[in-house]
């Protein structure tokens, strides 16, 4: 009994001792836990708070609203419209198969489109938006709205999208927008910054050139999301800015007329203010509807545009390199006068096809079979006598001619780097030929350059600028399309003279006047006698292929020649003659002769442009801003 009780005492003291040891350990560990908590929650709190916010807050960017294009009078020529779209969030749909087949029936989707939608559905998360259709007609949109009762989870949405109300009228000038591709994102910082899936960016034309200004900035939505990325609640909405609206110098009415005139023909029309350089109209034909590209063009439409023999995708105004033909003659004449090669009395006898100009065994004919007889400068220009211009070009030499031509804007881009597609044209000289072709210049080449054939190439916009600068008395102007483009504003109203002697310009102007308004002038038929509309111009007929002796014998009418071999018809003019203001260039590809095809178009254009002149003057920048 005593034994057992002493054992009990020992047992108790052992257990109590161990209890104290354990207790102290527990105490220390507890303190350790509390200090760990303190470290995480108080000391490192900021770090973990940031991490927690990073976890739960996510930003969504919405597509920015694109700036618009207005014409000079404030008409919208590239605007935004509300596109009717159909969205489905798959996870909110109870029976996705049923709903999607129902939608397919209602929208009359083709099997191909339907498969595309199903493919898209598989690529996204179930709570992300599936865009079934991005541009529904009002009819289909309302049809869907009427059937919403059994289309759970289907959302009709109105979204802002690009619209070109004048369809093909401005295509080559404005360009079009389409979904941004990887290349767009990589090359343009602004696009990269504002990119959201489905963002539409300018692909060509002014839409592309002014992308940075037009694009605007995103609306930003900040959402709280859960661990699976699902949006729980909206925390913030940051409104973006609409892109800048650009006002152009274009007159929609003139542009429309240009479209009408070149309907079913390939070519280009440019109209320019000869003092401000404002482009009133600029059209390349044939055109196409830029709206087709906004939601992605269908394969059929694309093939149709691509394979058109008249090449609607080419902006002929800026990209078309044409031989200027006789439209170069004012510059040749001016150059000869300026360099003192000829005076107004210098005469050349044109004796018809039997007596062409012979040079080193090559003969150079005038276009007129019978010949013009004795020609001075005014008459030669008026009747576009080739023999006369062969002669003065020969005397002038190509280097001096090219100097004058370059002064008047040929051989370099009219708009600088505004359009990435603009061609330079070509004003040849001896140096150029040596560098480019490695050959010496031939005198025969000088001779044909004198009538705008051979190496010389110009774009329609260059011809327009050249004419404008002759029309304004030989002063340099800087063409512009966008009015509120500050970068260019500073250059205006410096009229640098391009001539040595202003008399020479007047002589050329007078000769151009004769060409249009006097009997036997090449465009006499297209004249307007009313002084208000009277204009002065120069026709041009550019050969597409060399005229052989056999062709000369046959002397076929235009419609008898295959389309591809017909001459290009050109016409440049400025008016009104007494107090000029506007210059026009018309190029009709394979249109036959300048006097029969191109000049009548200019006549119609001048009528309209001058009619609208007072209206244009009445609008100044201030008024526009107030509206």
């Amino acid at each position, binding site marked *: 009994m005593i034994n057992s009780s002493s054992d009990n005492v020992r047992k108790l003291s052992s257990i109590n001792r161990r209890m104290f040891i354990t207790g102290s350990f527990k105490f220390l560990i507890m303190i350790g836990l509390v200090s760990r908590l303190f470290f995480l*929650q108080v000391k490192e709190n900021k770090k973990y708070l940031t991490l927690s916010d990073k976890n739960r807050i996510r930003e969504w960017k919405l597509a920015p609203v694109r700036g618009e294009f207005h014409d000079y009078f404030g008409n919208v020529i590239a605007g935004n419209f509300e596109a009717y779209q159909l969205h489905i969030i798959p996870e909110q749909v109870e029976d996705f198969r049923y709903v999607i087949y129902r939608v397919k029936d209602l929208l009359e989707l083709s099997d191909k489109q339907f498969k595309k939608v199903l493919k898209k559905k598989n690529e996204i998360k179930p709570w992300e938006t599936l865009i079934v259709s991005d541009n529904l007609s009002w009819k289909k949109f309302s049809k869907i709205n009427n059937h919403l009762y059994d289309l759970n989870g289907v959302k009709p949405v109105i979204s802002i999208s690009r619209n070109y109300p004048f369809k093909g009228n401005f295509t080559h000038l404005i360009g079009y927008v389409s979904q941004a591709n990887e290349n767009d994102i990589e090359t343009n910082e602004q696009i990269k910054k504002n990119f959201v899936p489905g963002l539409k960016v300018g692909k060509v034309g002014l839409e592309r050139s002014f992308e940075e200004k037009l694009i605007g900035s995103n609306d930003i939505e900040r959402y*709280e999301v859960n661990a699976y990325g699902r949006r729980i609640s909206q925390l913030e909405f940051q409104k973006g800015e609409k892109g800048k609206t650009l006002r152009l110098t274009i007159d929609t009415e003139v542009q429309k007329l240009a479209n009408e005139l070149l309907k079913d023909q390939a070519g280009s029309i440019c109209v320019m203010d000869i003092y401000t350089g404002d482009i009133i109209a600029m059209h390349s034909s044939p055109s196409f509807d830029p709206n087709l590209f906004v939601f992605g063009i269908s394969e059929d439409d694309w093939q149709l545009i691509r394979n058109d023999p008249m090449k609607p995708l080419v902006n002929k105004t800026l990209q078309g390199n044409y031989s200027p033909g006789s439209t170069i003659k004012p510059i040749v004449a001016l150059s000869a006068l300026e360099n003192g090669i000829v005076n107004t009395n210098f005469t050349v006898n044109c004796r018809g096809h039997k007596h062409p100009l012979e040079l080193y065994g090559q003969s150079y004919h005038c276009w007129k079979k019978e010949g013009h007889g004795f020609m001075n400068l005014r008459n030669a220009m008026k009747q576009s006598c080739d023999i006369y211009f062969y002669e003065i070009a020969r005397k002038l030499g190509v280097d001096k001619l090219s100097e004058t031509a370059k002064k008047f804007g040929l051989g370099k881009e009219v708009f600088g780097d505004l359009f990435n597609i603009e061609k330079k044209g070509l004003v040849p000289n001896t140096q150029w030929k040596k560098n480019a072709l490695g050959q010496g210049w031939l005198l025969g080449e000088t001779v044909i350059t004198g009538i705008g054939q051979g190496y010389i190439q110009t774009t329609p916009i260059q011809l327009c600028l050249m004419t404008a600068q002759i029309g304004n008395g030989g002063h340099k102007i800087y063409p512009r399309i966008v009015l509120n483009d500050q970068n260019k504003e500073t250059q205006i109203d410096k009229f640098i003279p391009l001539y040595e002697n202003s008399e020479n310009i007047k002589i050329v102007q007078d000769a151009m006047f004769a060409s249009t308004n006097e009997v036997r002038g090449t465009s006499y038929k297209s004249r307007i006698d009313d002084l208000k509309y009277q204009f002065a111009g120069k026709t041009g007929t550019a050969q597409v292929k060399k005229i052989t002796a056999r062709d000369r014998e046959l002397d076929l009418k235009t419609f008898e020649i295959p389309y591809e071999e017909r001459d290009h018809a050109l016409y440049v003019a400025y008016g009104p003659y007494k107090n000029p203001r506007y210059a026009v260039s018309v190029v009709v590809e394979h249109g036959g002769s300048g006097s029969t095809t191109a000049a009548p178009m200019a006549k119609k254009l001048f009528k309209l442009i001058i009619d609208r002149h007072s209206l244009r003057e009445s609008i100044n920048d201030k008024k526009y801003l107030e509206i």
Partner: protein
Amino acid sequence: MIKNIWRFKMYQHTRLTNNNFSFFSKFKNFDYILLTCILLLGFISLATMYSTDGGKVLFHTKSHFTKLIAFTFMMLVFSFINIKFWFSIGYFSYVVVIFLLIWTYLFGITSSGSQRWINLYFINLQPSELMKIFIILCLAKYFHRMKLEHVNSIYTLLTSLIIIILPMGLVIVQPDLGTSLLIAISGIAVIWFAGINHKYFIYTMLGFVISLPFIIAFLKPYQKLRVLTFLDPDRDPLGAGYQIIQSKIAVGSGGLFGKGFLKGTQSYLEFLPEKHTDFIFTLFSEEFGFVGSALLLVIYAIIIYRIIAIGAGSRSYFAKIFCYSFGAAIFVYITINMSMVLGLLPIVGSPLPIMSYGGSSMLATMIGFGIVMSAKVHSQQSIA
């Protein structure tokens, strides 16, 4: 006269039924501090559960509430049962739970890759959780009458090791390493308090360190991954390291006063894994901050303190060793769980007592509390 007889009869009656302890004196002997703490903990756990359900009374809240009420009542009933009864069922209950573990091994329910539960129709019981308590009860009885000099005999050591290793093995095969370790720790706690020589612990520890490479070689690939992740959670932040990183973010972002009740973004935006069960402390800590977490720890500390105090005040060796061991075991559960969510230990499946969702764990803990409370109520009871 009549009065006296009446008194006598009443005395006799209570004596016969309650074995020297009247019902009211039992009430008086209750440890109200412990009871208050348990109820407080129950209330906190309920509120936290409500938060995990996203501020709505949903399945987890309801289920937790029902279990809390039922098991608290059970605990109170257990406190009135004489400590002698618990002594008497020490071996029997152990055998029953062993049987249940075998049953689990044979016919158990498999969920997320391990076979831990048996279906009792009204509850899915996890016998391994019960073993955490009944192994203490069994070993406490085993050492109760043993003389101190016999404690360190080979025979005793082997017997107690077998008692520990048998359920461990049955739990490891489920597989459930976490619980089997906790069972082992419960058992080792009893052996420690029983007075086994320090040197055995030191030798075991040395042996463990030496054999560590071999143990690692035997670990399952997912267990190895956990250890590697513990050493560097950032090696796979969206995979293996995700749980611990998100857990630390939740705790750390709580700050001094927390984000506020029902405002724990980490939890209600579902960044937290296992937020009902093992990671419940993370949610609590995120919403109530350092102050709340420290307060919770204080409540646990008081509970453990009371358990030890009850043991110290008990007359019987059995009650003493049970209370000390249970206190140590509870402490280890809490420590392991918290160290795990605070990134101090690799991830092991171990619930936080009372706080975590899970019927079996709460049942086991409440049985433990019930026995401790019974020891308090019957503190003067000696066991022959």
